């Protein structure tokens, strides 16, 4: 159901396509009829807590710091920015030390798209985030 635009920066889906979409839409939106009480729902707490990400946490800060440092180091090591790396073609990428991570990331992305995005399990949001991270390495310049 999902597809990426040709430029790779828009994901387009005609319908709600995963637990994340559906959770937000069906639990926080939708017709609320005050006159009627929703009967006992089981399991909401667990599902919603999983989705809430606490932004201002020490853990987040440390990850941000690590990420900035890593992206920084990669630029120093390669004397090239990530986009340069991708514009200069695959041979160079292949010989670069970052190959494993880059290629692995792109493979994972292709696989996801190939699967059509209609995910099979509740880990989907983590996967989505993983995809965002991988994408930063790919930058989409090769599409």
């Amino acid at each position, binding site marked *: 159901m999902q597809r990426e635009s040709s430029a790779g920066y828009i*994901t387009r889906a005609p319908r709600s396509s995963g637990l994340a979409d559906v959770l937000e839409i069906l639990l926080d939106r939708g017709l609320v009829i005050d*006159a009627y009480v929703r009967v006992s729902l089981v399991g909401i707490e667990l599902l919603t807590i999983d989705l809430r990400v606490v932004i201002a946490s020490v853990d987040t800060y440390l990850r941000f710091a690590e990420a900035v*440092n890593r992206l920084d180091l990669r630029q120093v090591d390669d004397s090239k920015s990530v986009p340069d790396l991708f514009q200069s073609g695959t041979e160079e990428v292949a010989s670069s030390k970052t190959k494993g991570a880059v290629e692995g990331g792109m493979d994972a992305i292709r696989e996801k798209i190939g699967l059509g995005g209609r995910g099979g399990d509740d880990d989907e949001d983590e996967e989505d985030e993983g995809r965002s991270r991988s994408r*930063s390495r790919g930058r989409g310049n090769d599409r």
Partner: protein
Amino acid sequence: MSRLYLYGITRPRDLPQRLQDEGISLVPAAGRAAVVSELSEGPVETTRRNLLAHADVVEQLHEDAVVLPARFGYVLESRDEVLELLALPEIESLLERHEKTCELTLRGTYDESVLAEVGAGLQSLREAYRAAPSVDMGIALGEAVGEGLAERRARDAAAVLDRLNPIALDVVVSEPNGELAAFNFALLVERDRVEPVEARVEELAAGLSPPLHFKLVGPLPPYSFVRLAMPAVA
């Protein structure tokens, strides 16, 4: 008397065979109809499967005509209760309002590369962290990155909203969910105006990606635009 699970409210019509086979039926009354299925005793389980099934029913029906999607979990105790609900004048006005509308949700998420962009202005903190990668230095750097990201997010979200506001009938802005999330908008648009909105989003994406990635979902039933202000019936 059987309990009925409520998916949403629509106009009377024939249901697709697929939905009939799944036990979905309509309770019609005076030009309005509730989309329901029979439910046995016990609570409604908020499982992935049930949530997706609810979305599937309302989204499938919305393809052909107006549907006011119910929030997940409404159970009516009898047909009479359904008829009572359908008789509310607010329901009729919502159906009229949404006769030709649909919702598009647009979410923006940053690539991790945004952190490098934000971090570019934080050279001394970066160098200090690299020289001595302690927890304290990490928090100092990470906090600065977080602030930069918040500014970036506010700027990008405002820019996107400015461009979409004029072509949407209504917009609901929600908190973006996730560390690298940028924004989360629900747009109400005319069904036959989906393409211009898509084109506008493509245009925005071309200017802001990378590091911003857009996810556009729809046309959906107007999930975010069916709030009822109604006194509770005792």
